[in-house]
């Protein structure tokens, strides 16, 4: 009965399951060692809905979100709920958020929202708080404790600096490679809230954290980074099973730090290069990560996508849905104690498009 997911998927043909459409979920019955039940949820992120003028929006980014919603609506059986991982808007405008919400409204199921920097730095979350969601909160589902963090805050001196206008500040933060940008952080207020929130939770309860930025330090110049990541990790350390799922990076990333598994989600809008592709500065991409394929710009949706996530016995498996590309699954593997790609983890099984330079 203790058959691990990887072995199961290998024997049943993961490729076939992942590529069949409409999608069927892989469901495994684990021994009842944990109070957590098995379930799935969907995850859509980084839509970057961008207004051109009036009611005109960038068609390419619209189509990414529309496609993800349409595909997610075909999931059978239905996931328990959906997450949206932040950056619904490109420049935080009401028009962009409204347009994004209109597309998201077609998604069948409850959606929990995570805030991204592109949603925040125009009005500092006012419209988001009013129309969409609190900026940070927690909830429990089938024996798992979920925490949503607002990890895209930064130093007050930067946020409240001498900006010509709020849009000026928004544009400065929206530019990923801005040399005058500022590092993301969770901040003291939220750390105190998180400490109190987690104090009530049994250490054996699986904890899943959703943030926009990685709660680990990969590449500061593009904010693949959270300045106070160590402080968040310290609060998560006492728990037996912790998973952190983040957006912002527009690419497959995964890592294991102690008891904590880290996964990035895909963007529906456009892919970003891996930091190693910028030859002028060093970066710290987790060695565990087998990169996604290099994007082919001639296929508009290539290297974008969305994902659904299995939670089994408190551990997660990411099923990446990649239009114009082969789908991938990165799942926690009990034998090695870390997330692994079910097809490509061994060096010998990697393919040329996964080589980035």
């Amino acid at each position, binding site marked *: 009965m203790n058959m691990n997911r990887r072995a199961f998927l290998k024997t049943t043909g993961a490729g076939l399951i992942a590529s069949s459409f409409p999608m069927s979920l892989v469901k495994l019955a684990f021994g009842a060692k944990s109070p957590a039940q098995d379930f799935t949820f969907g995850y859509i992120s980084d839509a*970057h809905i*961008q207004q*051109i003028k009036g009611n005109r929006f960038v068609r*390419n980014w619209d189509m990414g979100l529309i496609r993800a919603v349409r595909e997610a609506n075909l999931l059978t059986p239905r996931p328990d709920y959906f997450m949206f991982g932040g950056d619904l808007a490109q420049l935080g405008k009401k028009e962009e958020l409204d347009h994004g919400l209109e597309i998201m409204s077609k998604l069948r199921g409850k959606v929990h929202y995570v805030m991204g920097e592109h949603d925040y730095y125009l009005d500092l979350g006012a419209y988001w708080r009013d129309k969409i969601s609190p900026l940070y909160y927690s909830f429990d589902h089938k024996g798992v404790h979920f925490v949503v963090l607002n990890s895209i805050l930064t130093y007050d001196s930067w946020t409240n600096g001498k900006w010509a206008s709020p849009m000026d500040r928004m544009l400065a933060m929206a*530019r990923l490679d801005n040399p005058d940008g500022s590092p993301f952080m969770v901040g003291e207020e939220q750390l105190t809230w998180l400490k109190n929130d987690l104090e009530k939770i049994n250490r054996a309860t699986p904890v899943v954290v959703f943030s926009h930025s990685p709660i680990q330090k990969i590449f500061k*110049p593009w904010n693949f980074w959270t300045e106070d990541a160590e402080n968040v990790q310290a609060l998560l350390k006492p728990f037996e099973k912790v998973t952190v799922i983040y957006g912002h990076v527009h690419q497959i990333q995964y890592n294991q730090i102690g008891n904590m598994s880290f996964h990035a989600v895909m963007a529906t809008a456009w892919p*970003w290069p891996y930091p190693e592709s910028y*030859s002028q500065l060093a970066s710290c991409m987790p060695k565990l990560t087998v990169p996604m394929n290099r994007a082919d710009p001639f296929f508009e949706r290539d290297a974008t996508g969305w994902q659904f996530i299995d939670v089994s016995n408190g551990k997660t498996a990411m099923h990446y849905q990649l239009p114009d590309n082969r789908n991938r699954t990165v799942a926690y593997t009990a034998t090695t104690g870390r997330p692994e790609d079910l097809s490509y983890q061994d060096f010998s099984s990697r393919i040329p498009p996964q080589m980035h330079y």
Partner: protein
Amino acid sequence: MMRKNRGFIGGSLAALMAGIFLSMTFSTQAGDFTQADLERWDKEFMTVVAKGDKLFHSALGTNQVSCDQCHPNAANTHPETYPKFQQQLGRVVSLFEMVNWCIQNPLEGEPLLADDAKMVALLSYITYERRGVPLAPGKH
């Protein structure tokens, strides 16, 4: 005929005077240059790089989208691999053609001439952000 001759004489005179002027003010020969020259040329180049940086981070087409949205620090443009066989186009192309492809498609704009000052600036910025990487023409 008269005009042509006058033009020729006038031109010769101007060249002669310019020669005298140059020989009076510069002692260096054609192949000689100074540290000051190097600094000036570098400054000229970096001015164009800065223009390219600005263009790369602005809307060059009709839909507000900018190059850096997909290529922060011009990463993943691989200037060192051009010219190369661009498999999607089915022929060997120079980098400016791919820049134009991006301007026309994701940016929904009009292509630039290869020697347009804007194109030269864009290529200067893209290549500068890739400085030090060995040439690898044809690499995919």
